[in-house]
């Protein structure tokens, strides 16, 4: 029931003083009570009310049309049709049409309902009393009595044996659920310490899938390699590449500051793990002039000319280097697995 049904003559009387005015002459800050209700245009002007009604009806009609448009777009537009819409770009016609018609269909229902509520439903503010949430002392006393009686009758307090064994049983039971989760995965073992690299495995260039020769790698170039014999189709490819991915750069031997790093290189070619020692992103933002590599995830920066030392960021230890040599046939090959675990540090790493 909306307020225009209220007889006109009853309206002004509501506009008198504040409801329940408590203002005393002595206190200018006292609560004057709820302000009187003022009428909206729609409350006193039937014409305005009818206008509002028409707006609401128009919005609901618009929604219906939009729904029809939604279905029409779904049926007529091919899923792969692209259109250019300024300034959005080359977009899917279907997505755009469906989204907009659905948006309009929904929005107009909402706008209609809200406009109806705002202009035609009563806007008289009403005060409702709150009741304290806490129970009265009598209720509380009764509850406590009931509880005490119940506890008494159960004998839980008296029969300690029952109580203790029950708690024991309940505490033990969840263990079976815990045990059930054991087969979620294998135990760590030495899995995080080993990679697919081993002695004599050639370094395969990931772009060309050919074994790398030292003369292929130039100073300032960047190449990614994986161990010989690994294929993308292998069922464990993802797990293995997550540890074995390798980054190959060539430095002038006089630029290699770290003695061990120099020993482990072949003709100035150093092979470092591509997996960041922070949390395992494939680090490879190689700056060829500074010989720094940066991790795109958390910006740990390593110096490849200085044994992969951390020079900035949250990584805790140097990038592991793979010891390589040139074999008899003139290809680069690993002289063994990494000497330390690759990737993020963990408790057992030591």
């Amino acid at each position, binding site marked *: 029931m909306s307020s225009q049904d209220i007889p006109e003559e009853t309206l002004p009387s509501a506009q008198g003083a504040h409801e329940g005015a408590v203002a005393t002459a002595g206190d200018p800050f006292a609560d004057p009570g709820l302000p009187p209700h*003022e*009428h*909206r*245009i*729609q*409350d*006193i*002007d039937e014409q305005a009310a009818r206008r509002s009604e028409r707006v609401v009806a128009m919005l609901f009609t618009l929604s219906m049309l939009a729904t029809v448009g939604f279905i029409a777009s779904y049926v007529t537009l091919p899923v792969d049709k*692209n259109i250019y819409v300024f300034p*959005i*770009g*080359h*977009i*899917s016609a279907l*997505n*755009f049409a469906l*989204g907009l018609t659905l948006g309009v269909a929904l929005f107009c229902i909402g706008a209609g309902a*809200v406009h109806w509520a*705002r*202009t035609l439903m009563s*806007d008289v503010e009403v005060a409702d009393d709150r009741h304290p949430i806490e129970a009265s002392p009598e209720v509380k006393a009764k509850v406590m009595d009931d509880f005490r009686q119940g506890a008494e009758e159960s004998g839980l307090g008296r029969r300690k044996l029952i109580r203790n064994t029950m708690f024991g049983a309940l505490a033990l039971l969840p263990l079976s659920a815990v045990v059930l989760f054991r087969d979620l995965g294998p135990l760590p073992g030495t899995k995080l310490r080993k990679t697919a690299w081993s002695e004599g495995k050639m370094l395969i*260039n*990931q*772009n*060309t899938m050919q074994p*790398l*020769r030292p*003369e*292929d*790698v*130039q100073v*300032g*170039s*960047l*190449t*990614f390699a994986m161990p010989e014999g690994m294929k993308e189709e292998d069922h464990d490819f993802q797990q293995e590449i997550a540890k074995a991915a390798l980054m190959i*750069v060539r430095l002038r031997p006089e630029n290699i500051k770290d003695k061990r790093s120099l020993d482990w290189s072949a003709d100035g070619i150093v092979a470092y793990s591509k997996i960041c020692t922070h949390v395992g992103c*494939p*680090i*490879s*933002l*190689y*700056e*060829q*002039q*500074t010989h*720094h590599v*940066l991790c*795109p995830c958390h*910006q740990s*920066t390593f110096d490849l000319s200085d044994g992969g030392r951390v020079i*900035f960021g949250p990584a805790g230890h140097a990038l592991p280097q793979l010891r390589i040599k040139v074999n008899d046939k003139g290809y680069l090959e690993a002289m063994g697995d990494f000497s330390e675990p690759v990737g993020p540090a963990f408790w057992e790493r030591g």
Partner: protein
Amino acid sequence: MKKLSARRRHPLAAVVVLLFALAVTGGLYAAFAPADTAKADDSAQSLAIEEGKKLYSVGCASCHGTGGQGTSDGPSLIGVGAAAVDFQVATGRMPLQQQGAQAPRKKVIYSQAEIDQLGAYIASLGAGPAVPSKSQYSPDGADIAKGGELFRTNCAQCHNFTGKGGALSNGKYAPTLEGVKPKHIYEAMQTGPQNMPSFPDTTMSEKNKKDIIAYLGEVNSDKTKSPGGLELGGLGPVSEGLFAWIFGLGALVAVAIWVAARTAKAKKS
């Protein structure tokens, strides 16, 4: 801007630029100006080198040394090849405006003919990669999907999934690849400008490079499809989050204010 870069990428754009340059510098160099005419006769070649040397001593020698040997202000150019010159000068990176973390892309001040002369001179100082021919960098017939894989392995770590660029250490950055000509992309991979590592043919074949250029043409050009709507810079969740806060929540708060606001009262005066 979009229109301009589209025209610049047009296959004929290079020719138009070239013709314009020729008209300016006079018909004399017409015979040896195009990059493809590597087999131009010796006298024409030496003329180009001569002209390049003049340009070099005016525009480049103060930093790179009178003979390209390099100084404390600029690296040696011996052995960098014509491709490096073409990339650096034709994208406006050189000559450098001021020393900084990195030379930015800016307005090109040399004509293509002059750039070719400079390239000829630098190439004469020591052998290096030559300017690639159109058949080398043209994406025609390349494998886009393979290019995508290569891009994600070799390039995306610095330049982002679709080549929108990204940050490097200490103010350096990998620039966006939007609107970069295939030729310059090829040269950049070939020569490794500034801090970018190079990807020489020995480790990344010509075919690989073509694939990468083709992939970029598909995912980072003004014809690139973004079926879902506004790309929001193609930068991932940060711009999406900003959009959700400003336009999503912003619109909903505006709607909420309308829903809760008092309806206009009739003023009885």
